């Protein structure tokens, strides 16, 4: 953990606390951080949110898993051939530039209103980011190690397995870390649509409807915390796997 890590957290809560205390906004619409945290702790303690956390995490896990399983091999495949990549580059960049949630209605039509449409659209958005980064990692492999391996008599597949794959890993990890944040965003947003009975996104919208502003802020905080923690875990895994990065 970085040395100045706590400063950001303190700053966030301090600004929030000041704004809430001087009543810039109506206290009803912006409760103070302490009230919100106490309320969140109570919800967590009593297990009110268990079903929602579980539902969101399962959707996220599945979407992220599918994105990894589909995205990495596809990215490698596309990156290995500049010709193939160039021919599909437009499709990848087009959909990458489009908010995945905007095409959620299309996924609803294809997958129906149950969980599968949410998982599919999040997996789609996340996979695009992984494909893009993995492909670029593979394409930007430095020629020096490949030349050295070729001179040692390495065959194409050996060069791929022992050089190209590893050289592309740092860039692949950038894609993986971006994709989990994106998948969480998409899952939360799609949970706000119809057909969801449990999920943190659903709960945020519900609390908004019934003016439980404290509860709404609590879940927003929780969601941010989950996203942050997942990123932190992936960063740790990255440090272990791509141990040579920056050295």
């Amino acid at each position: 953990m970085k040395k100045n890590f706590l400063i950001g957290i303190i700053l966030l809560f301090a600004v929030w606390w000041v704004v809430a205390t001087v009543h810039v906004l109506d206290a009803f619409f912006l409760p103070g951080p302490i009230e919100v945290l106490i309320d969140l702790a109570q919800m967590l303690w009593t297990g009110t949110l268990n079903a929602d956390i579980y539902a969101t995490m399962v959707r996220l896990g599945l979407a992220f898993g599918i994105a990894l399983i589909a995205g990495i091999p596809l990215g490698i495949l596309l990156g290995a051939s500049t010709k193939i990549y160039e021919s599909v580059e437009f499709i990848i960049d087009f959909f990458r530039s489009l908010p995945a949630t905007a095409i959620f209605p299309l996924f609803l039509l294809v997958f129906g209103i149950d969980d599968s449409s949410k998982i599919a659209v999040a997996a789609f958005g996340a996979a695009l980011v992984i494909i893009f980064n993995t492909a670029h990692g593979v394409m930007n492999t430095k020629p020096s190690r490949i030349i050295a391996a070729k001179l040692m008599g390495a065959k194409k597949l050996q060069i791929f397995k022992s050089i190209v794959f590893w050289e592309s890993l740092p860039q692949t990890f950038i894609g993986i870390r971006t994709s989990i944040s994106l998948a969480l965003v998409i899952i939360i947003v799609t949970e706000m649509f119809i057909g969801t009975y449990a999920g943190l996104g659903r709960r945020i919208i519900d609390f908004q409807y019934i003016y439980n502003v404290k509860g709404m802020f609590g879940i927003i905080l929780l969601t941010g915390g989950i996203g942050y923690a997942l990123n932190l875990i992936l960063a740790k895994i990255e440090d272990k796997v791509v141990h040579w990065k920056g050295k």
Partner: protein
Amino acid sequence: MTSGKEIVVKGLAKSFDENEVISNISFEAEKGDIVAIFGPNGSGKSTLLNILSGIAEKTKGKVEIADFNPNKFSYIFQNYRESLLPWRNNYENIAFPLRLGKTEEEEVRRKIVEMERIFSFKANLGLYPYELSGGQQQILAFMRALITEPEILFIDEPFSALDYGNNLLLRNQLQKYHSKYKPTILAITHDIEEAVHIANKIIVLSNKPTRVVEIIENEAPYPRGTEFLNSQKFAATKKKVLEAFQRGAMQ
């Protein structure tokens, strides 16, 4: 050191676009020769080695390497940092060429132990290359190149990453290896002392467009210890090389 011509280069030329960088280079190396390619910076020495190894295309001329066997050829690049594999530990870096040929583990281990002994390599093989000093990484690159017992070895600036003490040490170790396995070595250097110390043949190159100014035979017996650097033979050869170098630099 004569048992037949190993490398024959005739009228080799290389142009980039219309620009001639190498013009009409010819030389021969016998089996077991240590040939130093000595010339000013930017004289296309690396390009020459890249052409001979097939990495770069030649524009004109002929390169013949007798009974060339790609599995018995090694090339140590100047930029060892970019040729070692940082995701493999030191042991696996040295073993890499053998792994490509699916050599048995016992054989790999035996050869690595031998390499460690020849190069007096004391660093932990379980560590990664980036955890070693520049000099140790350079030696790692040497061990990786020599573990296949190459018949032909190309080295680009072999001692560039080393301080003077380690530079002398590696020169001795390279001679030790050479006396046992007798590979034909082509070594690029811009250091006149290195060239005269280890090579039995010194090819002096000119400024661009590069040509051979003179090929100087350096017949002192091996092993050449540090005392050789104080000998009259060394001084005389160095003088010859320097004169040729100056002629080439003035063209």
